[in-house]
């Protein structure tokens, strides 16, 4: 079985090389047969990798522990779901997942464009398959998932003894977090491939943008989902409620998301005004290479991270791929600069165009700050020999003000008109949002929040953006209501349907606002650790907690101890929480299953951390996390907004470019 799997990967590798070389050779030699043959090889690569993935999953589910990968990441006691998710629980399997997803994306691209872009497609095929070849090189040669376990093959394994999936990964959100993240990472290859193909074939227009807009948006959505699921997992599993720790691997997932967000914004400048063409090329390429860089950071061991895969020798492969890829991309962009000339001019600094420029500046600056903070320990050690820590305080100090300014721009952008805005129109547009924000800040100061300046500013800006969005919907919906005799809600739906990109975008912004409210709540977190005997109670925030019971037991996978914690608030009984402490048998590792009482205003989070040293008292860590649920709520709003953006608009909008044919001579009378 494992031989068939390994053979499928080797064949897929050979066919990927063939597809990459054949498509370009066919295009250059003008042999359509070769091009079509190369494109069909893409389908074959997908088929072979589906077979290899299916076999690995089968080996995991049926417990073939003579396979090194199966022994290292699965054990008989694990539930079937986690045996399946062990596919991406380790280095080799996750690289196979990556390759399989890329082959799937590539097959879809080939199929949907089989009769379009005859000039570009061979180059698209080349870039997709060159990337595929790189990843297949890793799982064909140094990191095959089908290696048979023999004595000494892996120093940390006793032959044939199953180790099981890391207990922290045995959690439902973690089951789908990696595939979502990979769908995002891998998906950015498609717009990159089209962008570079457009450059190579000297396409004068921006057809690649229209073609890949949905790809980019879907990919961005997957990336957002992956990042949020990771946050949700960290929040519920690690035991202290931290959803973001600025770990290098977390940062690696954030980097392409930020640059992808910048690209989604600046691409509008190209669509509507024919501007920023070079910049969009840089952004889409940068996003792709940040995805590869993130994978490199996660897998090479260059940065220390609790989330990283085991250190391996594949770092050099990544360095070569990144170096060659970036050099080739820079060369092609510089060489084709004359095809990327801007078609319009910036008419005023106070314009929507300028707000996009500032939006890109702030997004890219925050992207750089995250990258810099991630790599600085490595750079510092290489140059000075000193190890250095760059942890949460650094990121907080740099990124909180930057994030707040970005939130400000989120509110300002939609208020400024394309081309230019007059001061009067700005005054009218800003009046209500600013007044509402100011009123909230003053109100919060009176409520005693004045000693948290960032929180004050953040809440004020969140309301500012909310009012701008609400006003946009209000103005549009009331106009439709007046014309079409319908109620306001129906008119708002109609408005959104007419221009799904614009109003879906506002809903995405609203999701981000809700997330910011959730992040801001962390300024008011409370925590308490106590050692109590059953029957004893303690207080945290407004809550009074009583440990009422302690039970234990075990199953095939782990031994467990659960405590029952009765929760009361102001004398009212709020129910019982059951935090659990587990000890996983195969991996010999403890893990906590926290109990969370989720509410919109605050979460009560209780962790059964273990027993006191004399085993007589229960150690409970209790936390109150204000507003944290708004983060997850914000994600769902962001999801809805992105899906709306993907819906074709009811009114097909043609983005008329501003064609400037000349200037009106001064003192020339204009006839009416």
């Amino acid at each position, binding site marked *: 079985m494992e031989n068939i799997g390994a053979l499928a990967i080797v064949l897929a590798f050979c066919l990927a090389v063939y597809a990459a070389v054949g498509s370009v050779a066919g295009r250059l030699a003008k042999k359509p047969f070769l091009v079509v043959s190369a494109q069909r090889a893409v389908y074959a690569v997908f088929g072979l990798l589906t077979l290899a993935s299916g076999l690995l999953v089968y080996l995991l589910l049926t417990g073939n522990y003579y396979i090194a990968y199966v022994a290292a990441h699965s054990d008989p006691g694990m539930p079937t779901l986690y045996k399946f998710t062990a596919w991406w629980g380790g280095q080799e399997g996750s690289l196979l997942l990556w390759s399989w997803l890329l082959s799937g994306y590539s097959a879809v691209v080939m199929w949907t464009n089989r009769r379009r872009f005859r000039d570009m497609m061979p180059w698209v095929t080349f870039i997709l398959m060159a990337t595929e070849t790189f990843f297949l090189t890793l799982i064909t040669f140094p990191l095959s998932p089908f290696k048979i376990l023999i004595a000494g093959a892996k120093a940390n394994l006793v032959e044939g003894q199953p180790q099981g999936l890391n207990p922290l990964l045995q959690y439902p959100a973690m089951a789908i977090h990696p595939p979502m993240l990979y769908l995002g990472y891998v998906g950015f290859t498609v717009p990159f491939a089209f962008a570079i193909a457009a450059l190579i074939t000297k396409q004068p227009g921006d057809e690649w943008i229209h073609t890949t807009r949905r790809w980019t948006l879907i990919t961005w959505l997957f990336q957002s989902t992956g990042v949020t699921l990771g946050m949700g997992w960290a929040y519920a599993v690690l035991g202290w409620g*931290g959803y973001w720790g600025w770990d290098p691997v977390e940062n690696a997932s954030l980097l392409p998301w930020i640059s992808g967000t910048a690209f989604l914004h600046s691409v509008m400048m190209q669509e509507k005004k024919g501007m920023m063409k070079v910049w969009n090329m840089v952004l889409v390429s940068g996003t792709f290479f940040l995805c590869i860089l993130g994978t490199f950071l996660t897998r090479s061991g260059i940065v220390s991270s609790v989330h990283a895969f085991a250190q391996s020798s594949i770092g050099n492969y990544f360095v070569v791929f990144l170096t060659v890829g970036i050099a080739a991309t820079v060369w092609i962009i510089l060489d084709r600069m004359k095809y990327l000339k801007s078609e319009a001019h910036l008419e005023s600094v106070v314009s929507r165009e300028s707000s996009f420029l500032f939006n890109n500046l702030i997004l890219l600056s925050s992207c750089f700050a995250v990258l*810099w903070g991630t790599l600085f320990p490595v750079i510092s050690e290489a140059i*000075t020999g000193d190890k250095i820590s*760059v942890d949460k*305080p650094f990121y907080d100090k740099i990124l909180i003000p930057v994030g707040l300014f970005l939130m400000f721009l989120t509110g300002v952008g939609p208020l400024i008109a394309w081309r230019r805005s007059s001061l009067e129109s700005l005054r009218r547009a800003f009046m209500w949002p600013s007044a509402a924000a100011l009123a909230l800040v003053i109100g919060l100061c009176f409520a005693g929040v004045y000693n948290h300046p960032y929180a004050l500013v953040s809440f004020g800006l969140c309301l500012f953006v909310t009012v701008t969005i609400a006003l946009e919907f209000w103005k549009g919906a009331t106009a439709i209501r007046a014309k079409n005799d319908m109620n306001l809600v129906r008119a708002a739906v109609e408005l959104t349907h007419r221009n799904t990109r614009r109003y879906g975008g506002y809903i995405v912004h609203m999701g981000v606002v809700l997330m910011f409210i959730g992040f801001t709540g962390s300024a008011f977190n409370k925590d308490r*650790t106590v050692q109590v005997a059953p029957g004893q109670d303690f207080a945290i925030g407004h809550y009074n907690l009583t440990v009422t019971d302690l039970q234990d037991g075990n199953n095939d996978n782990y031994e467990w101890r659960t405590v029952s914690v009765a929760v009361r608030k102001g004398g009212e009984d709020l129910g019982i929480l059951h935090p659990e402490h587990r000890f996983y048998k195969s991996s010999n590792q403890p893990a906590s299953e926290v109990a969370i009482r989720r509410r919109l205003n605050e979460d009560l989070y209780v962790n059964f951390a*273990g027993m*006191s040293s004399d085993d007589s008292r229960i150690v409970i860590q209790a936390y109150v996390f204000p507003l944290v649920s708004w983060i997850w709520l914000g994600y769902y709003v962001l999801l809805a907004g992105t899906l709306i953006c993907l819906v074709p608009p009811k009114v097909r909008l043609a983005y008329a470019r501003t064609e400037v044919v000349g200037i009106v001579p001064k003192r020339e009378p204009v006839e009416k």
Partner: protein
Amino acid sequence: MAAWKRIVLLAAVAGLLIGQDGTALVTPSVRRVGMRLACLCATCRNTVGDCAMLECGYCKPARLKIAQMQAEGKTDDEIVASFVKENGIQALASPPTSGFSLLAWVMPFVAIALGLVAIAWFVRRFGARRAAAELPELDPETLKRYQEQIEKDVARLE
């Protein structure tokens, strides 16, 4: 007499600390100093002040040390300096603002400054004034044609 008082105080602190778990030692003053120090357990990326791992091999003794030094009357800076002396600058939760590490703080703002310069260049390069200088004067015939088109479009909107 002062030495006696210090010894008694230290003995009292030590007595209170023995047998306590790591998180129970997080008094507000310990947390204040702890927030400046990185947890070097290599499992989490928290600070000594907010690491929630109950038996953290680094934070538990670190908090004990902070409490003891505070009892001895050491200032926050002296306590932090002692950790740096013992573990190197990686003991700090964020890079120091001197020497090579200053770059960590400066570079993000340099990036923003460079971005602003780039925007200024973009505005100058693609700004309307330059565009206007490059454009020919519009003849009345063409202007009239465009104005008629505008009238038509506006009428269609209404």
